[in-house]
């Protein structure tokens, strides 16, 4: 009897010790409608400690040249991880080249940045750190700075089993945190689950958004879903959306070298779009009204204009209002308030 009790006790103790020494996998909740077409590198699986470390790094301005800028400076949770500026200002005081992108649902993104020049989040994470007009500090130097703190070496030890901080491990931790930023609980999602009734204007807007125009059947549609459709409200595609007759920014062409890719940019997500103004790769539109006016009335013809934008219908003013009402249903209040995504240094 005593022997079996002792055995049980020792098993419990071993269990407790095990729980303290290991780093359990991070329980990622994948929305069913989003599907599982994503890649998490086998050498950077999500762990509780890795995600927690990535979150600290994301919010730490130590990673910048003059300790003033962190990733979160240009990617603020309250704005669905954008910054509200046309172009962002980094350590140099000069504006960035393009508008800050939302970080929602990056797990499903395949080519990062407006021109898609990074294939993985791990590769992406180091680029703004190094850029003189963003954080302006070589990742090797950041790693040295972190190494000298009391705070970070033990956290790298917990997350990766080594307290030797390297840019590679920093990038891995940041990528882990960013993969957890899933937004899938907007009013529209609740509508799909039967928990939120769309207003008549939102419903009309949704119909305009989802369907194309059919002149034979006398159906009017804005067909936004053609490029911004699917559960994530984006597709991994690059298009010239007719902003200029003579575009200045070569966009995707700089990455691929193909002339046909001139002035093509990523099709961004429309989730939380009401929070992520200003819009477009150069942040030229301040409001959703301006964006909808553009697609309805001001598509500029150019050599690489997307074939999908030829022959768009001009929307009436009430159709535009309906469409914008629908776009507001894509705002996910839970996402922008989720404590797991907030600044960990501000925790009480």
């Amino acid at each position: 009897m005593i022997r079996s009790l002792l055995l049980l006790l020792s098993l419990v103790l071993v269990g407790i010790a095990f729980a303290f020494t290991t780093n359990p996998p991070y329980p990622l909740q994948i929305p069913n409608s989003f599907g599982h077409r994503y890649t998490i590198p086998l050498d950077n699986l999500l762990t509780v400690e890795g995600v927690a470390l990535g979150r600290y790094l994301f919010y730490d301005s130590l990673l910048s040249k003059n300790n003033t800028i962190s990733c979160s400076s240009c990617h603020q949770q309250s704005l669905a991880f954008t910054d509200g500026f046309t172009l962002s200002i980094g350590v140099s005081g000069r504006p960035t080249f393009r508008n800050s992108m939302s970080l929602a649902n990056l797990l499903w993104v395949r080519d990062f940045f407006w021109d898609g020049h990074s294939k993985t989040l791990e590769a992406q994470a180091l680029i703004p750190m190094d850029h003189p007009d963003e954080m302006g500090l070589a990742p090797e130097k950041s790693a040295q700075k972190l190494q000298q703190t009391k705070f970070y070496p033990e956290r790298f030890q917990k997350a990766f089993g080594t307290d030797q901080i390297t840019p590679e491990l920093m990038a891995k931790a940041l990528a882990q945190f960013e993969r957890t930023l899933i937004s899938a609980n907007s009013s529209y999602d609740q509508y799909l689950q039967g928990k939120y009734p769309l207003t008549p204007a939102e419903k009309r807007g949704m119909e305009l958004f989802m369907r194309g125009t059919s002149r034979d059947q006398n159906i009017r549609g804005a067909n936004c879903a053609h490029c911004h459709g699917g559960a994530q409200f984006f597709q991994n595609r690059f298009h010239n959306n007719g902003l200029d007759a003579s575009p200045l920014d070569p966009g995707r062409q700089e990455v691929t070298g193909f002339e046909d890719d001139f002035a093509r940019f990523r099709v961004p997500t429309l989730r939380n779009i009401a929070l992520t103004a200003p819009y477009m790769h150069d942040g030229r539109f301040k409001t959703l009204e301006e964006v909808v006016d553009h697609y309805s009335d001001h598509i500029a013809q150019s050599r690489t204009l997307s074939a999908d934008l030829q022959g768009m219908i001009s929307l009436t003013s009430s159709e535009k209002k309906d469409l914008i009402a629908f776009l507001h249903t894509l705002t996910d209040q839970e996402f922008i308030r989720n404590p797991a995504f907030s600044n960990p240094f501000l925790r009480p």
Partner: protein
Amino acid sequence: MYSTPISAHDFQWLIPHLMIVSPNRSIRVTSIGLSTFTGFHFQTENRKLMKYLLLSFFFISSVSAQTVLKISGEVTQPLNLQANDLKALPHVEVKAKDRDGKEHRYSGVPVIELLKKAGVTVGAQLRGENLVKYALVRAADGYEVLFALPELDPEFSTRTIILAESVDGTSLPSGTGPYRIVVPEEKKPARWIREVREIEIRFVK
């Protein structure tokens, strides 16, 4: 002496002011182009003519030397095809209805020919576990569509799916071409993928 590749940098002075050339696009003067130079003496009086000739070759080679179609994945021979390689492959003409509801004549390379060239398991090899392989076709803008291998193999299918390069005798327009998949008899043309750049052969996991 003439066989060394010439980099884009060497031609910088030839590039019109606004033309953007990406550093990752390699430009190689073809042997056909260089044979013309045999016997030339690189003397000062010939420089002008040289520049002129190089200028014309630059434009020819910059068009022809770009990889226009990549075939990768479960292949024995990954391919980076240039426009001329595609031209040299057998062509067929198919009739099919586009989104406009009208029948057009499309000319191009049957996809099966591309698969054979890349050493994909088609024909007699398309059996057993090879039946769960598929071709993922990717466009310039990232749009993707999928065909199971038997759909592309004439031993299974009666229709010929082609990589078209012309419609009704003219090259496909910008935004659609230079290459587009045409799937005859398919009711909805969603898999008629435009601006095709890559075909990746994969196994279902």
